């Protein structure tokens, strides 16, 4: 049972006079929030200040989302929601026209644009048809998804396959999500159209691979072998080298995949060496220095070096393998970039623990493929994995 008390409170409220420079300062505070919650109190004060400013703070706040980290976006997002809620409860309308223009502005943060879109959509169902059709190649994967879904719906409603094909082609050009790509590809292939899913996603299909090296008892993951012994930023792996493998001498050999989703299947294409590890390398030519995401999926443990620098490592076996299971942001240099991938298989005997495979692609932050400026395969190799 609850204790109910009716009381009179005498309260003095101090309402701040919020000026433009205060708003700017508060947004700056939120943009600079650090991990670890060390500055939460300051951030809370900044949000209060923005809330006191009301709707006049909305657009500057939304503009502050640009290039902000997910952590700081979350603070700004909460400030936006607090202001929007307060304005709505006070019976005031949000600046609809300015906010819709903000959604259309592709220079702004995809997170902020989507937030505004969803806020406006609650009271304006027509906004979807006004905005989404133009967002097929948007910087926001969510807007793209909506635009692709519209086109798929339109195409699938057409009884004439020939008329549907251009719509599916158009939808394909913007699709970045696996389920939509699968739906479109299935429809196009049913219409006898060629679809290159592998290229669409930017998978890396051609590799050189060497192994097996020893990973009994999982000790290989932390142990450098073969090309890992001399990995460095100044030179690519020596493709003429011969290494001491798990049971024999081993050399680089080419391996390629024609799988739609770029799966290089070591167990099927070479052998499921239990308690082993392999190294694979490829190059990717970039026409400029650029930020990219290397996205990979594998049920095996792995390490990835880009141009000799370890960019991520993951010791986990057989917990699943999915497209884009891992996203590794990296900066590629102009010219040839070398990827060295270490993949480890353990000794589990269950049926579900026998996969020895990986899929790697290069894309931008929307998940849209980036393609190399030239062919990637290195062919200066002598012979196979085992002699």
């Amino acid at each position: 049972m609850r204790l109910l008390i009716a009381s009179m409170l005498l309260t003095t409220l101090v309402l701040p006079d919020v000026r433009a420079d205060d708003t700017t300062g508060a947004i700056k505070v939120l943009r600079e929030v650090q991990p670890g919650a060390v500055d939460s109190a300051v951030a809370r004060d900044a949000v209060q200040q923005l809330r006191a400013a009301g709707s006049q703070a909305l657009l500057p706040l939304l503009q502050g989302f640009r290039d902000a980290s997910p952590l700081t976006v979350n603070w700004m997002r909460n400030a936006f929601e607090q202001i929007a809620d307060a304005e709505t409860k006070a019976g005031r309308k949000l600046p609809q026209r300015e906010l819709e223009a903000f959604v259309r502005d592709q220079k702004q943060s995809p997170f902020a644009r989507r937030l505004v879109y969803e806020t406006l959509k609650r009271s304006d169902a027509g906004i979807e048809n006004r905005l989404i059709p133009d967002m097929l190649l948007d910087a926001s994967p969510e807007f793209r998804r909506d635009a692709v879904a519209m086109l798929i719906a339109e195409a699938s409603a057409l009884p004439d396959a020939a008329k549907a094909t251009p719509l599916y082609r158009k939808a394909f050009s913007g699709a970045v999500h696996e389920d939509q790509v699968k739906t479109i590809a299935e429809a196009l292939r049913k219409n006898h159209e060629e679809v290159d899913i592998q290229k669409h996603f930017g998978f890396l299909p051609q590799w050189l691979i060497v192994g097996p090296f020893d990973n009994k008892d999982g000790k290989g993951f932390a142990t450098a072998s073969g090309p890992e012994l001399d990995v460095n930023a100044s030179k690519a792996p020596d493709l003429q080298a011969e290494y001491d493998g798990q049971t024999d001498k081993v050399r680089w050999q080419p391996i390629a995949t024609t799988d739609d989703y770029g799966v290089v299947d070591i167990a099927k294409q070479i052998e499921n060496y239990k308690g082993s590890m392999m190294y694979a390398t490829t190059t990717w030519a970039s026409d400029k220095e650029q930020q990219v995401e290397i996205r990979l999926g594998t049920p095996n443990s792995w390490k990835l070096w880009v141009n000799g620098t370890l960019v991520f490592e993951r010791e986990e076996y057989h917990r699943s393998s999915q497209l884009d299971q891992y996203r590794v942001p990296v900066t590629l240099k102009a010219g040839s970039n070398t990827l060295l991938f270490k993949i480890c298989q353990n000794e589990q005997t269950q049926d579900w623990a026998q996969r020895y495979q990986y899929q790697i692609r290069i894309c931008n932050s929307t998940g849209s493929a980036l393609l190399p400026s030239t062919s990637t395969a290195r062919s200066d190799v002598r012979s196979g994995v085992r002699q």
Partner: protein
Amino acid sequence: MKWIITFLIVTAGTLPPSMAADWRQFRGNAANSVATGETLPTELSGDTIAWKTELPGRGLSGPIVVGGQVFVSASSGYVQDRLHVISIDTATGSQQWEREFIATGRTLTHDKMCNATPTMASDGERVFAFFSSNDLICLDLAGNLQWFRGFGSEFPNASNSLGMSSSPVVIGKTVVVQVESDAESFACGVDVESGVTIWQIDRPRAANWTSPSILPATDQQSALVLLQSSKGLAAVDPVSGTIVWNFDKGASTIPSATVDSGSIVIPSNGLTAIRPSKDNTFEQLWNSSSISPGTSSPLVVDGWAFALNSAGVLSAGDTKTGERLWQLRLRGSFSSTPIAANGYLYLFNEDGNAFVVKPEKDQGIIVSELDLAEKILCSPGAADGALYIRSDEHLFKIAERQ
């Protein structure tokens, strides 16, 4: 220059509700699945559905109740990277507010799970929403962000490709989270007010979906948080992070230990009961391999130890000896942990069938059933005479018709 406005606010309100009427975390305030002092409806029917409210996205997290608010988390988006925290009025079922955030860690999970799998927690003044992406979000009861910890970005290897499910618990001024996976594992105590880490300890590097339990304070020992893993169970001081004692005989990585009257029942080789001693050790009371939980955590109440396996067989054992007394086959598969209130058990299967079971000396009797017709994987909450349960689509309040 600031405007200074002084005025009188005349208000009538309530003091913060007493904890007894709340359900503040996974398995309740004591994290033992017992709704102490609650009397819930036993004859379930369509008439006992007080209200049903639509929820966004997906969620396996259970509801928590603080005062007149029931809170649930959800996740949405193609890659489950949108994190939702929703406050709903317990009286009417109407949404009071919804806040949304962006995940900072990995969001992919097994299809059966989703990012919003851990149940929220509260200290009565704030709510703490935790997600598989290891984002820990603190909001006040009005939905104002208090702090945000992105453990997923602070510790990018502490994730599980199948998803994480450990729910936080609050002890005093500390919210305790377990973040354990094959690649990196730790547990930490976070200050409820500031969000700053008070302590952090390494944990066994192995996938673990269990949640912390609470060993209440005694005359000799302050309250301890119990951290379970495949290695066993560690009793940890929630203020300092010091390990006080360690049960090292191994334990399950899915169902979590529970506490009753100072004894701890651990999902270890079936069930194993231990009792902590004054000298920071413990004695084993019994082990029973014939009472073995599946995904659901065991429940100990009124002299019984209950374990529900994934196929819906409820086993009842004697808490003094561990002897299995009876079994009752329910219907369907179960992931949800049952709760107990006023001499009855409340169980929900994955098909959305609710069962009220009256445990007796030599048998369990199904008193009533209710088909909610939606997939239910979460554990229910109970407060103020009502039962709260959620599916992906809806939050239900089940209560006697007024």
